[in-house]
């Protein structure tokens, strides 16, 4: 069984060699994604991975599914368009912390509150890797970088709390170096009917190598954490931001589901009838004639 899964996961490789640096966390996230897709038996022809710009946004190129490598920060609205155009597709958006929470930050709360049935994986390295190490919205206070030579004057964004505040219906956190848990979180996220957000710690070995300290700091969320409670999730996001697991999960109607219901409830339209509606001689629609 395990071998069969491995074969399936291997078949999901596009054949392109990832451009990431040795030791980059994104390799781990990609491996967990292959594994998760294999477990879910996703049909590559029925799956679209959407990304923006950045090291981690090259991700779609390494998977043998459909992919859309678009514009910096715009993965989420692009993914929404894909999903609403064809709700039968599995749609997964991926990207970095800068792509998702700086330049693309304006889209995140709207994707969350709309609850479009897509999965969003952030590879969070608290830095801008592709442009060589400037701070990102998740960088820590005092973090030294080429753009903060005297240390970061700003405070990091709590992305988990932000997601919960925006009523994201699935909020989870994993880490590139905790493959088993991350795979599970991705599987659960894709299964979740609605907008699922997975923040994955994914260290940048070139410009902000946090590998060792993150390995020591992360800890699986306590068993008693009640992920069905929004207040409990909010509290955990504030007090335990290095946790691994599902912070919040609740099912509510999806935008794509509501769109489909609205379409199903609408009588079939005809352009001829719509034009007749503007006739200078008022007419009844063809159906009534």
């Amino acid at each position: 069984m395990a071998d069969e899964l491995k074969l399936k996961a291997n078949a999901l490789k596009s054949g392109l060699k990832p451009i990431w640096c040795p030791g980059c966390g994104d390799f781990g996230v990609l491996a967990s994604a292959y594994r998760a897709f294999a477990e879910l038996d996703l049909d590559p022809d029925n799956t679209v991975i959407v990304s923006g710009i950045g090291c981690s946004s090259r991700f779609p190129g390494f998977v043998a599914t459909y992919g859309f490598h678009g514009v910096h920060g715009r993965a989420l609205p692009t993914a929404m368009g894909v999903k609403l155009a064809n709700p039968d597709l599995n749609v997964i958006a991926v990207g970095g912390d800068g792509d998702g929470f700086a330049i693309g930050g304006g889209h995140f709360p709207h994707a969350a509150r709309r609850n479009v049935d897509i999965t969003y994986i952030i590879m969070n390295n608290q830095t801008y890797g592709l442009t060589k190490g400037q701070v990102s919205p998740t960088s820590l206070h005092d973090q030294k970088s080429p753009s903060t030579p005297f240390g970061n004057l700003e405070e990091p964004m709590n992305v988990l709390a932000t997601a919960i505040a925006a009523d994201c219906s699935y909020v989870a956190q994993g880490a590139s170096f905790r493959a088993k848990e991350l795979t599970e979180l991705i599987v659960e996220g894709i299964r979740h009917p609605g907008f699922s957000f997975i923040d994955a710690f994914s260290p940048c070995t070139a410009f902000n190598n946090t590998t060792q300290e993150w390995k020591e700091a992360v800890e699986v969320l306590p068993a008693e954490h009640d992920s069905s409670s929004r207040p409990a999730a909010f509290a955990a996001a504030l007090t335990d931001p290095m946790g691994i697991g599902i912070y919040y999960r609740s099912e509510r109607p999806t935008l794509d589901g509501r769109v489909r219901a609205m379409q199903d409830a609408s009588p079939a339209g005809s352009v001829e009838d719509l034009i007749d509606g503007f006739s200078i001689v008022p007419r009844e629609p063809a159906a009534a004639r």
Partner: protein
Amino acid sequence: MRLAGESGEGVISSGDILTTGAARAGYWALTFRTYPAEIKGGPCMYQVRIGVESVLSQGDSVDLLVCFNQEAFDLHHHELACDGHLVCDAESVRVTPEYESRSSEVALGAIAQESGGNRRGKNMVSVGLVCGLLGVDTARIEEMILKRYAHKGDVGESNIRSLRAGFEHARDHLPEGAHRLDAPRATNDDRVLVSGNQAICLGALHAGLRYYAGYPITPASDILEWLAARLPRFGGVAIQTEDEIAALASVLGASYAGKKAMTATSGPGLSLMAELVGLAGMAEIPAVIVDAQRSGPSTGMPTKTEQSDLNHALYAGHGEAPRVVMAPTSVDDCFHIMVDAFNAAEKYQVPVIVLSDQSLSHRLETIARPDPSSREVDARVTRSGAQANGSYQRYLIRDDGISPMAVPGGPGAYVSTGIEHDEAGHPRYEPELHTAMMAKRFRKLDPLAAHEGRITTSGPARADVGILGWGSTEGAAIEAARICLDRGLKVATCYPRVLAPLPVERIREWAQGMTRIVVPELNVTSQFARLVRSDVGIEVESVTKATGLPFATTQIADFITDGTSPGDDHGVWGPGQEGEAVVG
């Protein structure tokens, strides 16, 4: 004729009723409205040109002016034609002495009170007055009023009494007019009365639109609203996104996933979309973007018209990304341009920017009923149609530059990307590859410029002067050419619909033998004239204005025959309004 008063006083609804009534009675009509950007208050006016023959433009000076208040008189009296007639509300307007001989003061409120029991019916009295002066039968209008107020008790009846009282007052007390219209010709024409934006929506739906995304902005919001109510009946949807960037991003996502998709905006929205226009060009994703231009720059004058986004549409985005730019010239053309736009987008896998403007998008016009069956709809070349077997390459370089596009959900998984790529879509930076890909992306548009893009020409053969223009000025240009002919000068017009890629050869051919080419446009920097000079390589005379208002026919004619510049429109369409504008 023109109605002028305070915004919120019923000027717009009176104008709508009058226009629809005249259209239903068998006249041709074309409207022109200006209104403030504020929701309530501020001067507004509604002009409608009504004819027995079809009407091409807003015309020039006003034959019949109705003023509801003193400000309306002060703002609009300059534009009354020498033989025009003025009707003023006797209770609130004092006309200046020079107008006394050609004005009638009517106690609109008192007549409304007496006939309908409510002073607010004075707008209906004014509609009746206008019908009486023009000789337009009110029967159609009465039907409409009854229908509109069917669920509002006796409001309909009371309005009809006011309407009739106005009509009778005109008949009994106002001068038997120089402005009576001939009876409309009896025809079996199938006509519709639609706005530019509505025609845009109808054309888009016929072309197969299924996904719309947009952000509210004047003067494009009604496209979002109209489609939101109707797309679900076609299995589609209209989404109001958080900004224009998300609108175009989601349109590209939907198009990539196989649906025909569009957005509509105005200049400020197109500014935000610029980067994604480049992506659509590079990744070769079909998309249609309507820019209902408004007066800029920045917030500018959101409710006023201008043709100042041409350069923006031609060049939006960094690098050199192919796109098609089209401009409709009339309400009828709004329907057809959308079919053209979707066909080009799908066939050539490019973004197509359609440049309407406020005056065209928001005017109502009677047009021959558009016949969808006369317009064929193209589809993109898909993988199944071309490369069902063998290894699929999304960006395969073919002679025509068009690469078959696989659709997610079916075989042919590939990555659509804005990074330079080889035929398989894999990132590559080699000089020869970039050269080949750049060439392919532009080459595919050649047929559009060479023969596919529509061009309309009018006027006598062997004309002395040519008017070469774009967009909504065509009606005024054709009428200006007729005025010039009356003045003894043969003038022809030429309006290409596709501005990028520009049909250079065909314009050159048309211009042959003419001594002067005049390019009218509503902007300051002669954007189209410069394009013609550089790309077509012919010398042209530019006639521009950027007052927020369309050309009057005589402004173009006077430039051609007398060299007079249009100036600032004082005394043509009336000055603009003061007041703090809100972003519309």
